C-alpha cells in the first residue's frame, strides 16, 4: 500500500514535467538545439503544473468530484499526442560537434564536478523536504496548505471567505483563514500531490517544492545554453542559482508560494530577455505564458510582469517616443511629489486627483519614507542569504556602464548593445520597484526584521543572475536560432 502511494506520488511529480516538456518540444520546431531539453524539462514542469491546477479548477467548475485520475489521464493523453507529433516531424540528422575533438578536457571535468556538487545539494534538500513535517514555514501551515487539506476531504474547492462570512454561515461549508483572498494556485499544487496519494502526507505534499527548485536549475541551464554560452558557463550559472541559501531554504521548508513565483517570474523574464536579444517568437510566447502563471500565484505576481513593460517599450518604440515617455514619467512623479509630498497619497489638497485615483481602483495608501538602507545592505551584502550575489550585481552594473559607453563596442555591437540596454533597463526597473516598495510604502515596516525583504529579492534572483551571465559571457550566436541569430531592430 505504501509502495502504491509512493508510486502515485512520484507519478504526480513527474507527469506534469514530462507533459510540459513534450508540449514544448512539439511546438518548438523540427530541431531541438543544444540546451533545449533541460529548458523544456524546467519550463515544462511549471507549465505542466499550471495545466494540472487549471484542470482541477475546471473539474470543480463542472461539479466533478476532484480526483487524480481524470486530469492525469488527460495530461498523459496530450503528452502521448505530442510524443507522436515529435516522432513524426522531428529532424533526426545529427548536429556536428564543432571542433569537439580538439577541445581540452578540463571544462568537461569541471562541468561534471559541478553537477556532482549540485546533485549532493539536491539530495540533502530532498531529505529535509521529506523528513520535516510542516512546522517551520509559517505561511505554509497558516495559509497555503490549509486549503488543500480541506479540499482533499471534501473533494471540491470549498470557499474560503472573510471572518464575517464564516461567523454568519449556517452550512458549515464556508471556511476562513486570514489570507482568504490569496490566489488558489499554490494550494492546488499541494492538492495535486495529495489527490495522487489519496491522503494527506506532509512528505508527499512537500515534494513539488523540491521539484520546483530542480526545475529552476534545469530551465536556467537550458536557457543559458540556448543563449549560446558554453556548457560549462551554463552549468556555472545553474550552480550559482541553485547554491543561493534562500532558494535552498524554500525548497527544504516547503509550503511558501515564493519559490513558485521565483520560478515563474524568473522563467518569464529570462524568456523575455531571449526575445529581446534574438526576437525568437517562441520565447516571447513562453514569456507571456509564464507571466500569466505569475499572476495566479501571489498578489505580487500580478505586479511583477508589469515590470517588463519599460524594457518592452524601449525595444518596440522609436527612440524619440521612448524619450518622450520617460520625460512624462519623470513629470508625473514630480507632480505627485510636488502636490502631495511624502504623505498621504490621497492628496488631501487635491480632490480631483484623489477622486480620479479612487475611480481607477487605487485606494488611498501612504507614501512615507522608510530609512531601510541598513536592512537592505545587511540582506544583500552582509548576511549569507545570497552568497556574493549583491557584489556580483554591483560589478555587473559597472561592467554594463563600461560596455555601453565603450566606443569600440558602440560601433561594432549594434543589436547586441541595444539588447543589453533593454535588459539592463529591465533590471533597473526591478530595482526601482524594490526601492519604491521598501522605502516608500507600508511594506517598509517589515524590512527591519527581514520579514519580507529577502522573499522579494528571491523572486528576482533568476533574472538578476541571467542578466549577469549575458554581460560576462557574450555568446557568438544563439543556439536556439542557429547561425541566423542576429535580428535587426525596428526603429
Amino acid at each position, binding site marked *: 500500500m505504501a509502495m502504491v502511494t509512493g508510486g502515485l506520488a512520484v507519478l504526480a511529480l513527474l507527469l506534469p514535467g514530462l507533459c510540459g516538456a513534450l508540449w514544448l518540444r512539439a511546438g518548438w520546431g523540427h530541431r531541438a538545439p543544444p540546451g533545449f531539453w533541460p529548458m523544456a524539462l524546467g519550463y515544462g514542469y511549471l507549465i505542466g503544473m499550471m495545466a494540472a491546477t487549471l484542470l482541477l479548477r475546471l473539474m470543480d467548475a463542472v461539479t466533478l468530484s476532484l480526483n487524480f485520475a481524470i486530469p492525469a489521464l488527460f495530461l498523459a493523453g496530450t503528452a502521448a499526442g505530442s510524443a507522436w507529433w515529435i516522432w513524426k516531424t522531428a529532424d533526426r540528422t545529427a548536429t556536428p560537434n564543432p571542433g569537439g575533438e580538439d577541445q581540452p578536457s578540463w571544462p568537461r571535468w569541471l562541468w561534471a564536478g559541478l553537477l556532482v*556538487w549540485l546533485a549532493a*545539494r539536491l539530495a*540533502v*534538500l530532498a*531529505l*529535509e523536504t521529506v*523528513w*520535516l*513535517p*510542516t*512546522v*517551520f*514555514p*509559517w*505561511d505554509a*501551515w*497558516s495559509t497555503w*496548505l*490549509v486549503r488543500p*487539506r*480541506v479540499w*482533499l*476531504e471534501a473533494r471540491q474547492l470549498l470557499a474560503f471567505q472573510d*471572518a464575517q462570512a*464564516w*461567523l*454568519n454561515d*449556517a452550512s*458549515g461549508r*464556508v*471556511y*476562513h483563514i486570514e489570507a482568504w483572498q490569496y490566489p488558489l494556485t499554490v494550494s492546488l499544487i499541494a492538492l495535486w500531490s495529495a489527490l495522487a496519494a489519496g491522503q494527506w502526507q*506532509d512528505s508527499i505534499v512537500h515534494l513539488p517544492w523540491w521539484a520546483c527548485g530542480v526545475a529552476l536549475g534545469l530551465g536556467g541551464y537550458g536557457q543559458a545554453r540556448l543563449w549560446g554560452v558554453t556548457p560549462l558557463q551554463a552549468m*556555472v550559472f545553474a550552480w*550559482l542559482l541553485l*547554491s543561493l*541559501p*534562500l532558494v*535552498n*531554504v*524554500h525548497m527544504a*521548508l516547503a509550503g*511558501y508560494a*515564493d519559490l513558485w513565483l521565483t520560478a515563474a517570474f524568473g522563467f518569464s523574464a529570462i524568456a523575455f530577455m531571449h526575445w529581446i536579444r534574438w526576437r525568437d517568437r517562441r520565447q516571447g510566447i513562453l514569456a507571456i505564458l509564464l507571466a500569466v502563471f505569475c499572476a495566479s500565484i501571489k498578489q505580487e505576481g500580478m505586479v511583477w510582469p508589469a515590470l517588463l513593460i519599460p524594457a518592452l517599450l524601449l525595444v518596440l518604440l522609436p527612440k524619440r517616443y521612448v524619450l518622450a515617455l520617460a520625460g512624462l514619467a519623470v513629470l508625473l512623479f514630480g507632480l505627485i511629489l510636488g502636490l502631495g509630498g511624502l504623505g498621504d497619497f490621497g492628496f488631501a489638497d487635491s480632490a480631483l486627483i484623489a477622486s480620479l485615483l479612487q475611480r481607477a481602483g487605487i485606494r488611498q495608501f501612504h507614501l512615507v519614507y522608510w530609512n531601510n538602507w541598513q536592512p537592505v545592505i545587511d*540582506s544583500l551584502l*552582509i*548576511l*549569507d*542569504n545570497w*552568497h*556574493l550575489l549583491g*557584489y*556580483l550585481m554591483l*560589478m555587473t552594473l559597472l561592467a554594463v556602464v563600461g560596455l555601453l559607453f565603450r566606443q569600440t563596442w558602440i560601433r561594432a555591437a549594434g543589436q547586441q548593445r541595444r539588447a543589453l540596454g533593454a535588459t539592463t533597463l529591465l533590471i533597473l526597473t526591478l530595482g526601482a520597484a524594490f526601492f519604491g516598495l521598501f522605502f516608500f510604502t507600508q511594506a517598509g515596516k517589515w524590512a527591519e526584521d*527581514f*520579514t*519580507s525583504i*529577502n*522573499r522579494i529579492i528571491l523572486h528576482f534572483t533568476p533574472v538578476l543572475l541571467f542578466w549577469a551571465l549575458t554581460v*560576462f559571457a557574450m555568446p557568438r550566436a544563439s543556439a536556439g536560432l542557429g547561425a541566423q541569430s542576429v535580428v535587426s531592430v525596428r526603429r
Partner: protein
Amino acid sequence: MSSATRRVAADASAGLSPWPFTGAALVGAVLTVLGFLLYYLQGGLSAAYPPLLWRGEQMVVTRGQGQPVADMLEIRPAEADDGVFFRFAKNAFMARPYGELIWQIEGLDPAQDIRLIWQMQSDPGNVRQAPVQRVHLSAARFDLRDQPGWEGYIINIGFMVRGAFAQPLRVRQVELRPRALSAGDLLEQAWEEWSTSEYWSPRSAHYISGAPYKALFHPIIMVVVWISLSALLYGGWLWLAERRFRLAGFTLLFLMGWWLLDLRWQADLIQRSLKTYPQFAGKSEIDKQLVADDGELFQFLLEVRRYLPVKPARIFIINDDAVNRAVARNYLVARARYHLLPHNSFADVLDSAQFGKARANDYILVLRPDKGLRSQQAKLQFDPRQRLLQWESNRLPVQLLYRGIIGALFQVRE
C-alpha cells in the same frame, strides 16, 4: 627585446597564469586572516564587542511577578511558588568575547539556590546553567571564562533564584564585560563562527544569517576581503609582467570565493540534516508532529479529536492567555487550526461579540498555554453548575467534553 615585443610574447601565452594566480590567492588569504587578527588584537575587539548593559526595566520576568520601583525592577515569587526567573533583554551575542558578569541586585541570599541560566542557538533544547556561589554573591561578579558550556551564540540568558524570599529582589542592572582574546582564541572564534549551524526555525524562510549576526569573522566579509586582496595582487603581477588583463583570472577568484561560501553552507545543511534525521526520519505523520516543537499541543489535540465528529465540524478556537497571545502572535490558535484540519475552525476570535455568534452544536476550544497559572486574568469563565461559558456579557450554554492541562473542549447546547 623591446617592451612591445615582450608584451606580444606575453599575450601569445594568454590565459590564466597558474602559479602567479595561485600565489596571489594564497597570499591574499594569509593577508586577510592576518589583517583581521591584527585588527582585533590592536583594539578592534572592544569596538566590535562593547560591554552589554541591561537595566532593571529591560528585564523580562518569566517566572514570578515583577514591577518597576524607582529605577529598579522588583521581583517576587508568585503565590505557591518558591522561585523566580528573569532574563535579560533578548539580544543575542557570541559568548567567547565576554568574560565577566557584574550585577547590582539587592535581596539575593546565600541560602538561596541561585543559578545563571543560558541557551545557545546551536542547541536550544539544552539549557546551560552555572551555580552562583557565596563568593560570587559577595563580589557581585561572576567569571564566565571557564564555565563549561559558555560558548557559541547565546540567545537567552538570565537568573534563576529558588528558596525562601525574606525580601523581594531588586534588580538595578546587569553588565557583561568583554575580555581580551589571544590570537589562538580569535582563531578558535573564527572556526566557531564559520562552523556554526542554527537549524531550522520559523524565520529561516525570511533570512539566513550565515554566521552569528555580530560575528568577528563573518564569512561574507572575509571572502570579499580575500577576493579583493587576491585580485589586487594578481592584477599587480599582470601589470608588472606587462600581461594583458583578462577577465578569466578575476572571474575564477570570484567563483572560488562563492564556492567557499557554498561549501560552508553545504556543511551547515548537512549539520541540519544530522539533527533532522534522528528527530523525524522514518516516523509516521503523527509521530513527527508529536516530537515537533508544538508536540504538547498536538498530543492535547489528539485527545480533543476523539470528542469531535468524523464529519468536519465548526470550531471556535480561543487562546485565553493574553500574555501568550501578545508574545506568540496567535501562533497557538493557528497551529491548533492546522492540526484540527479538515475541521472548520475559526482561529481569529478577537472579542466576545464573535464568541457570542457560536450556534448550537458548534464547538469551542479554549486554549490556556499558561496551564492555568494566570487563570485569574482569563477572559472566559466556565460555570460547571449552570454549564455556562461566559466572556464579558456573552454567555453560551455548553457541555464540557474534555479538559486537559492546556485547554478544554466545549460543545454549544441547544
